[in-house]
């Protein structure tokens, strides 16, 4: 029984902060391409698994233009055996739905179906840096009809045909057991990708790569490419950093540097002069007739995610955009919320009080913890019965895998990790109609450098909303609504994946959302096990400041801190009044998780650290010199201007 390990990879441009072209501008034409970072972790996870299965066949697959061969050859030089590329002009403009369909069709063509005799495992990166959707792994799994685990950090085989996956969840992790075949998507927090070996590179130089066109794999054109995709990108605008230049502390000793910081901090940060917005040219709106293509779909369905017996905060935040959309749609549009779990009925009033009009309850003892297979099945059944026009999820690790899996079942495209949701219209020049009403889902992409507006034309329109972006709607005590019970049809196969262990610290998560000051340590501060970072937060607390300590991904990787403290994981944006980044270089995921803080102080020894581009105040220095000085100041009453709550 030989195992086949299949890695799905994508080639992406090198993240823009790495390279400048002539005259300091990013030159995309000359931009180097790399294997998407998350995919590299997927490749490495496969190579790690091979240690347990020395006879495993290693296959790497990609979909894209012929230039993607470079990435495939790199994978070979890392230790893979065979490479396949799906490359066809007709695939151009495919959205994630179409991509998931095309890749799974290629895998089926290669014999990897759910009924295959030999076991296989499909590995992928969590998401790509030029798309950030995290959809494709889920869509591939659903198309192949096999179980999945996404946001996985590491995998191990149990020797009995199962894979034990460590899946990252908000505030912790889960260990799950999946039977093979299955699909796993890897976060960039596992074993870092190995360097290619010379012997591998020599092999990669001459190894033939099999290139398929869509005809080769029997894929039609109806559901792929720009015309077959259920969603389109309607608009992309550049996101300009709203941070004014950092004010660096000056001085030759640590004391003077800290004095300088405190003085600067008191004076306030640099403010960007708001440039007058250029009047947008208003395109003449053609006189096309309005067309409502909802075909009877009505209402907004949201998911109430339950963690530790409570409705998770992102699920409640979700009711804010849901209410706005309902109002924009008018016509008595209702918000339905699906509440799945064990003995969860008691949670329904919370949802009513925050804005749900109807709560649909599914209770089952086997559903105490979220599992993608039964949950997606339940959703599909509810959607079929209720026919909503919009389905919304919090963009948590669960929401982000659940939504695309459901999307494949309903034929819908999904828009991931939205920061803006609005009802609008679409001028369809081809068909000479104006589609209205239609959901405009806005999401940052390309490493937070662009904001794209995505429209979906298949109902329900599905989007996930970034946690921390929308306010928790005000609670209306005593507000109530319709409570209904739904009995889904579930089969044994929906429960083939077993959760072995769940580790979650919600308390820290809550503290981070509510803290006024967050002291966050990066790789540069692990020398003392984060002692000084924690100490600074501790001293602030002693002064009566609402403070909490946090850390970057690497610190968690090195085992110095628990996941709950990590900033920059999916689904968590913190907004303290003061964010103190210590020894943090500024990986894009981290920046995304903290850049909306009111004031940011960065302390790092490396003057060219990326973090300084996003900071208001900076000190170039070693943390073990600067922090003791800062701690002394706090001890003698300095609180970064925060209000003090004396007990």
């Amino acid at each position, binding site marked *: 029984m030989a195992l086949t390990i299949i890695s799905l990879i994508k080639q992406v441009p090198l993240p823009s902060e*790495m*390279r*400048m072209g*002539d*005259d*300091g501008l990013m030159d995309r034409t000359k931009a180097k391409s790399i294997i998407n970072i998350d995919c590299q972790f997927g490749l*490495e996870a496969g*190579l*790690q698994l091979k*240690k347990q299965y020395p006879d495993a066949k290693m296959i790497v697959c990609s979909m894209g233009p012929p230039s993607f061969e470079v990435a495939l050859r790199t994978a070979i030089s890392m*230790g893979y055996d065979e490479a396949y590329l799906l490359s066809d002009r007709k695939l151009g403009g495919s959205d994630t739905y179409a991509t998931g369909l095309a890749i799974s069709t290629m895998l089926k063509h290669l014999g990897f179906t759910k009924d295959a005799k030999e076991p296989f495992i499909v590995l992928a990166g969590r998401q790509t840096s030029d798309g950030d959707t995290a959809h494709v792994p889920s869509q591939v799994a659903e198309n192949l009809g096999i179980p999945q685990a996404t946001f996985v950090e590491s995998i191990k085989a149990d020797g009995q045909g199962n894979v034990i996956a460590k899946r990252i969840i908000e505030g912790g992790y889960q260990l799950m057991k999946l039977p093979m075949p299955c699909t796993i998507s890897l976060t960039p927090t596992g*074993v*870092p*990708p*190995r*360097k*290619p*070996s*010379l*012997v591998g*590179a*020599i092999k990669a*130089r001459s190894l033939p790569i099999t290139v398929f066109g869509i005809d080769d794999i029997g894929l039609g054109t109806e559901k792929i490419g720009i015309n077959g995709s259920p969603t389109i990108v309607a608009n992309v605008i550049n996101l300009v950093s709203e941070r004014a230049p950092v004010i660096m502390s000056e001085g030759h*000793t*640590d*004391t003077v540097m800290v004095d300088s910081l405190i003085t600067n901090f008191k004076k306030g940060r640099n403010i960007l002069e708001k440039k007058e917005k250029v009047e947008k040219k208003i395109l003449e709106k053609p006189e096309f007739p309005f067309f409502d293509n909802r075909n009877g779909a009505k209402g907004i369905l949201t998911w109430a995610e339950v963690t530790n017996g409570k409705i998770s905060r992102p699920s409640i935040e979700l009711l804010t955009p849901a209410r706005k959309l309902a109002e924009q749609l008018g016509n008595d549009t209702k918000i339905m919320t699906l509440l799945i779990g064990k003995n969860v009925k008691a949670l329904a009033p919370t949802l009513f009080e925050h804005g749900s009009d109807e709560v649909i309850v599914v209770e089952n003892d086997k559903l105490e913890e979220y599992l993608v297979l039964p949950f997606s099945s339940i959703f599909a059944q509810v959607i079929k019965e209720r026919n909503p026009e919009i389905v919304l999820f919090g963009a948590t690790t669960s929401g982000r895998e659940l939504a695309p899996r459901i999307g494949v079942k309903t034929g819908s495209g999904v828009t991931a990790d939205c920061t803006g949701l609005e009802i609008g219209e679409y001028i369809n020049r081809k068909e000479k109609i104006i589609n209205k009403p239609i959901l405009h889902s806005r999401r940052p992409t390309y490493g937070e450098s662009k904001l794209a507006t995505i429209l979906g034309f298949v109902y329900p329109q599905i989007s996930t909303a970034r946690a921390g972006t929308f306010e928790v709607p005000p609670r209306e005590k005593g507000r109530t609504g319709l409570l209904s019970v739904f009995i889904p049809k579930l089969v044994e196969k929906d429960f083939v994946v077993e959760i072995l262990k769940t580790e979650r610290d919600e308390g820290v998560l809550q503290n981070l959302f509510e803290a006024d000051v967050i002291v966050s340590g990066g*790789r540069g501060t692990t020398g003392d096990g984060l002692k000084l970072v924690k100490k600074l937060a501790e001293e602030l607390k002693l002064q009566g400041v609402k403070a909490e300590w946090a850390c970057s991904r690497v610190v968690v990787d090195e085992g110095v801190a628990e996941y709950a403290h990590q900033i920059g994981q999916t689904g968590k944006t913190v907004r303290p009044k003061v964010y103190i980044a210590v020894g943090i270089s500024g990986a894009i995921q981290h920046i995304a998780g903290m850049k909306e803080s009111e004031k940011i102080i960065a302390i790092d*020894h*490396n*003057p*060219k650290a990326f973090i300084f581009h996003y900071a208001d105040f900076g000190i170039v220095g*070693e943390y073990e*010199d600067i922090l003791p000085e800062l701690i002394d100041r706090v001890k003698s009453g300095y609180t970064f201007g925060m209000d003090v709550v004396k007990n």
Partner: protein
Amino acid sequence: MSNVDTVKTDILIIGGGPSGLATAIHLADVLKQYDKKGRILLVEKGSSIGSHILSGAVIKADIFKTLLPDVDFNEIPLNAKVSSDTTVLLSEKGSLKLPFHVPYMNNNGNYTASLGQICRYLAKKAEEKGVEIYPGFSINEILYQDGKVIGAKTIDTGLDHHGRQMDNYQPGTRIEAKLTIFAEGTRGSLAKQLIKKYDLQKGRNEQIYSLGCKELWSVPEGNIKPGEIYHTMGYPLNMHEFGGGFVYGLNDNKVAVGLVVGLDYQDPTFDVHDAFQVWKTNPFISKFLKGGKLVEYGAKTLPEGGYYSIPKLYVDGALIVGDSAGFVTMPALKGVHLAVTSGMLAAKTAFRAISNNDFSEVILRGYETLIEESAIYKDMYPVRNFRQGFSKGLILGAFHFGTQLITGGAGFFGKLKTELDSEATKKLDELTFKPFKERFKGKLEFDKVLTFDKATDVYFTGVNHDEQQIPHLHINNPATYETVNIKQYGAPSQFFCSAEVYELHTDKQGHQEIRIHAENCLHCKTCDIKSPGDGITWMVPNGGNGPEFQNM
């Protein structure tokens, strides 16, 4: 994967610069000409060919006609042909154009160029001829057997700072080669090991070096014409410092500027990068850059000991070519044509070895004979004493050079000796003139328009190093480093480093220590050359690490 993989080849070339590529191209040509087979494998530590290549450069381009006789000369990516060539003597604010050239510095018929671009082109040609080129792999070990060189091994990756194997550990690949060509460039870290092991410098002068810092600028139309070149002497260097600046006008309104300074200077606080910045403020220089923008920065050392510093160039199973061998001619500081020539001669020697299936010194010593008969000798021998003459200051140097011109290079004293650059540095309390910071007081505040601090310049190199690896800069003796380098010399590494790798940190108690930011390293190797006392060893980091020069 615990077993080390082995690859077998006829020829292994370590380094994808002009000498290594010339070796590969010429050997492939000769093999083809005589219908012989031979596998040629070239390994380069930069992420791509050219990414670690930096040169002025004004090149004697005719050499490429010799290397690539079948190629249309216009196809070679040279920049502008030298149209005017002026030597200028600078003072703090003034300049004086010299009405003549320093002998041996005529650039008529030469071309400006980005050597990195040329190397990319040569690599393409080499691949077309069947050479296998693998960039992004570092070699850190020479393989020996029975006193012979039998190949080399790429670095083990997936090690942490302490050298412990991590989960993604990947052992290096053993490359077993009949002949290994060391073409690592200046102060090659393997060539250094080889020279030491076989005592190849015996009876020769020590190699001495200079450090060049270079910036590439994009300037407004009209600032300088393509092919308009200037060499400067004088300011900001004093009589104890050997070197000079260059301004090369390039096509598309680009200009390359740089300052090259001999590392036999005495002042432990001397800073070539900062001196380069000061040099740019002279009105004669700044006018070329006015209104322009910095595009790229880089630095490299170059061997300038000359003829008498060339080590023995062969051992059983190995040859040394190019800068690793010290083929640079003074005072013009030209090495590219010599690198190519030495590569071609190494290729001829390698061909003889393949033909005779004898890779021992018996055949390989023919390489040195070929060099003695070649243009390398003609270029280097007459100026064999040139650089040494200047090691005791410019006045004495000019005197020596004068006598050498009359006597055909011998001078009145015969072979002049060199001393190691690291030993030329004086202790703080031995310095008889103003230290660097006082000399240029008020001039070391960089405006980030015309002048840049090191950190900013480093940003314009694209440099990158994997965080998880054994630090590639090694202080040989931490105890004496503190007592000698820091206490007596004031930690010269913080000044001589071209990329702010070394930082002297003083804590509250006044204790001083050196902190190493290896991630900034531009692979110039000055620290390996110039550190007094027990010194610093520069080792290769992981493959693909280092600067990402585009057009240097």
